């Protein structure tokens, strides 16, 4: 074969099958359904049409249920890991993302209709966001916990504890930076997450699953579902084994419905927060939203004659 024919011969394109990320594995939707994901360019976006990108899995409520089972199973190990270890793993996620930056720039540009350079800014900010939260894992306890002064021979200590399994509805518009900004604070504090990706642009989220799978993050800590947000979120909001829900990606009507469903087992609900610019420093609110304060009274030991055992 001469060099010339090799150049002209067309190569078969390799299409990627985007899959869910549940329990550390990459299943298709239990229902077998998919839906078409298209690009968002300003003109095509206005017309409601874009170029076909991929078929994403259209998750059903059973996928949601399986994801909750996986998240619950992972919770013990993840919440029991040291904060330092969680920080290392989150930093590892940033490292892995850095290596696959080009892919994410490409996907974000398609998903959000941005130029390559603007998409690159978004991806850089998302990677920095992982690093930022990685640093917080072993510091948040000092900020929101501590020793309380009490009038008695006790230590009184408040320490923040993760809530449990958190359902996260990822922001609809910011498909990657917004996504990272809602997942990272949830898992940084030791919760496990069931994430419902942006309905129109789920591909960066599904690719993030591949990054998480190769980042020492135990399977089940983050579970990513794509599909119709309302369809997946409704059973999740009513699920008795979900402890909290972040409604970032729900519109007003859906948010209200979900909040009512979530009241049944007293889920913690984070209402949709208006975010104009996801690249601003987020503060610690998203972390504290899914922390519970455990307060323990600890005797100091028998008291000596002086009124103190020391």
């Amino acid at each position, binding site marked *: 074969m001469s060099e010339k024919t090799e150049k002209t011969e067309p190569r078969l394109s390799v299409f990627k099958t985007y899959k869910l990320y549940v329990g550390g594995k990459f299943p298709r939707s239990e229902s077998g359904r998919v839906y078409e994901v298209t690009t968002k360019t300003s003109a095509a976006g206005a017309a409601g049409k874009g170029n076909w990108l991929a078929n994403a899995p259209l998750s059903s409520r059973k996928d949601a*249920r399986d994801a*909750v089972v996986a998240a*619950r199973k992972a919770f013990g190990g993840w919440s029991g890991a040291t904060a330092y270890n969680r920080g290392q793993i989150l930093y590892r996620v940033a490292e892995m993302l850095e290596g696959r930056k080009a892919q994410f720039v490409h996907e974000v540009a398609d998903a959000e209709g941005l130029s390559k350079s603007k998409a690159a800014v978004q991806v850089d900010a998302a990677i920095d966001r992982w690093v930022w939260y990685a640093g917080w894992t072993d510091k948040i306890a000092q900020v929101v916990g501590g020793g309380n002064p009490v009038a008695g021979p006790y230590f009184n200590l408040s320490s923040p504890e993760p809530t449990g399994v958190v359902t996260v509805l990822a922001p609809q518009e910011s498909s990657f930076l917004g996504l990272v900004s809602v997942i990272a604070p949830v898992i940084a504090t030791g919760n496990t997450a069931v994430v419902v990706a942006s309905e129109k642009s789920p591909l960066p989220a599904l690719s993030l699953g591949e990054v998480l799978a190769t980042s020492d993050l135990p399977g089940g800590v983050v579970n990513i579902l794509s599909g119709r947000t309302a369809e997946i979120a409704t*059973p999740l909001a*009513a*699920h*008795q*084994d*979900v402890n909290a829900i972040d409604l970032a990606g729900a519109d007003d009507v859906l948010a209200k419905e979900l909040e009512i*469903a979530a009241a*049944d087992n007293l889920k913690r609900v984070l209402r949709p927060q208006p975010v104009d610019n996801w690249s601003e420093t987020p503060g610690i609110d998203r972390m504290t939203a899914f922390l519970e304060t455990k307060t323990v009274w600890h005797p100091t030991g028998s008291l000596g004659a002086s009124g103190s055992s020391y």
Partner: protein
Amino acid sequence: MYSRYARRYARLVTMPTNAPSPTAERVGGTPTHALQDVTASDSTLRRFLHGLPGVDAVGLEARAASLGTRSIKTTAKAYAIDLAISMVDLTTLEGADTPGKVRALGAKAVHPDPTDRTTPATAAVCVYPDMVATAKAAVAGSSVKVASVATAFPAGRAPIAVKLADVREAIDAGADEIDMVIDRGAFLAGHYAKVYEEIVAVKETCGTSARLKVIFETGELSTYDNIRRASWLGMLAGADFIKTSTGKVAVNATPANTLLMLEAVRDFRAQTGVQVGVKPAGGIRTTKDAVKFLVLVNETVGEDWLDNHWFRFGASSLLNDLLMQRQKLATGRYSGPDYVTVD
């Protein structure tokens, strides 16, 4: 593809294991059915058991797998869940069993879901002989039976006198059912008569006060042919129930070995008119699994066995999953392990 074939050839695959018809009449002796002569001596027993048709392993597994694909939904599912709950032998067989744990188990057996009193009670609680009295007190006044494992469970490696004493103790303490283990060593060595005599002796000790379940420990019998032989041996010896496993070894109840045993009880009734129950035990953890077993029962032996007098599940964690599924059907939202007991 293969499931279609499995259905087409189902009749061939599940060929009745008709034993050679009896040739001699015999009067007296314990069993009073048509096959009593085969137990006359070690050699007739061996000839009979080895004369049973060999098991088509591939066909058996394909049949079990294809029956596991049925979709059971809505009202059928609700019926299946309630039926399965009523068939559970709620089991605790740990060295660390305390009277408190057994009492808690008894309370759970009587009212599996305290928040919903329409939930049926389970069939029985299954405990070690020394816990029978505690269990009996815990389920007093309810329909729940007390089953006790006996005969040096789970290994069955003890002299016959010890085994019988074990059984007697359990019955004296009030056990309604005895789960005995066969001597797998003797069975695998081909001493069928020894195994037979043991079961007969235990059955005699049980008398009319307790039903006898015979555990084969199918995971240790190593072949389907052996499971078929053990099933027939147990039934010939007068077992009221044949049970797959102790739950103490790696391989427990599987759809295939349960299907095989169901075929054995079906054919045994066809030949002798005696109905024998089946109890798969161990490894059945989810509602989905339990429903698959119920489908096997319905398709193999029919509705006569769809009752907790003739079919049981030996399980502990299965009940929680059944209850969670039941809550899901009742409320429409998924339940979680926080809403059932930890045991």
